[in-house]
């Protein structure tokens, strides 16, 4: 299975993008939860404010489908 991890801001360099400036391809066998996918990188979820898949916020127990884009949103708190 493959998924695309997309991240902006501080997270962009942390995911080590390889598809384009913002996106990394992650391939693995079988199904994995978002938590397990982050461990593959590895990336500590503490750096992530929330994650969305196809415009819906998902928690770390969510299992994405093949080919989905997972967007990691960094903390954004300035004003």
């Amino acid at each position, binding site marked *: 299975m493959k998924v695309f991890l997309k991240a902006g801001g501080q997270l962009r360099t942390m995911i080590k993008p390889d598809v384009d400036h913002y996106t990394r391809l992650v391939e693995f066998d079988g199904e994995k939860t978002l938590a397990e996918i982050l461990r593959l990188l590895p990336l500590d979820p503490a750096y992530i404010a929330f994650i969305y898949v196809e415009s819906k916020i998902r928690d770390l127990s969510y299992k994405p489908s093949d080919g989905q884009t997972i967007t990691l949103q960094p903390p954004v708190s300035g*004003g």
Partner: protein
Amino acid sequence: MALNDSERERYRRQLPVDGWNQERLQNCKVLIVGLGGLGGISATYLAAAGVGHLRLCDSDKVELSNLNRQILYSINNIDQSKAVQARKRLAALNPEITIEALAERLTDKNAAEYAKGCDLIIDGLDNQESRILLNQISFNLKIPFIYGAVDGWQGQIGYFSPPFTPCLSCIMPEPPPSERTIPVFGALPGMVGCMQATIGLQYLMSGQTPLSGKMLIINADTFSFDTISYDRNPSCPVCGG
């Protein structure tokens, strides 16, 4: 309350906007917390539109490094209270409305008092700890809260009105793990602040907004926008789902 001649002329260009309700706006009270890059802009457009009563809250003084984005102030305002200067500027823009200046930091001791009687709260804050407090007040007093935040090229806007929508803590219950100086350039909080004012005006006049229960994510470097939805979190420390 009927418009006077000066108000009719002042608002002449917006009165014909579809759904516009100037008299309703005149009777609204909005709390704006934080008068920097976000709040300075949202406050300006709410004042210009004629929201009857603005309550401005910010304990900070103007610094030189603010002036790349906080366009409500000038070099002549360095070391002066943002709340007081914002009040002066906005009163000069629109003397037809009432503007209060609270040169105080929002705390759990004063937040309920400051928000009491308001129809809407606009977030112009620069830290997540205070946003979590504002979210709690929004929930306790059942006052909708328009969230806004920026960092570099990233912007976020959300409308929260628990129990009718999820609250901010449903998705972000904790502040970020580390302190850092947040990079920010002026045009992006300008954009976000304008959007907050737009959503705020729509809500005040109609009681609704299409952003209810959603968040707009702005990636200004790619100029892409994502509107995302989320469910109430049954374990939320504020609204309990």
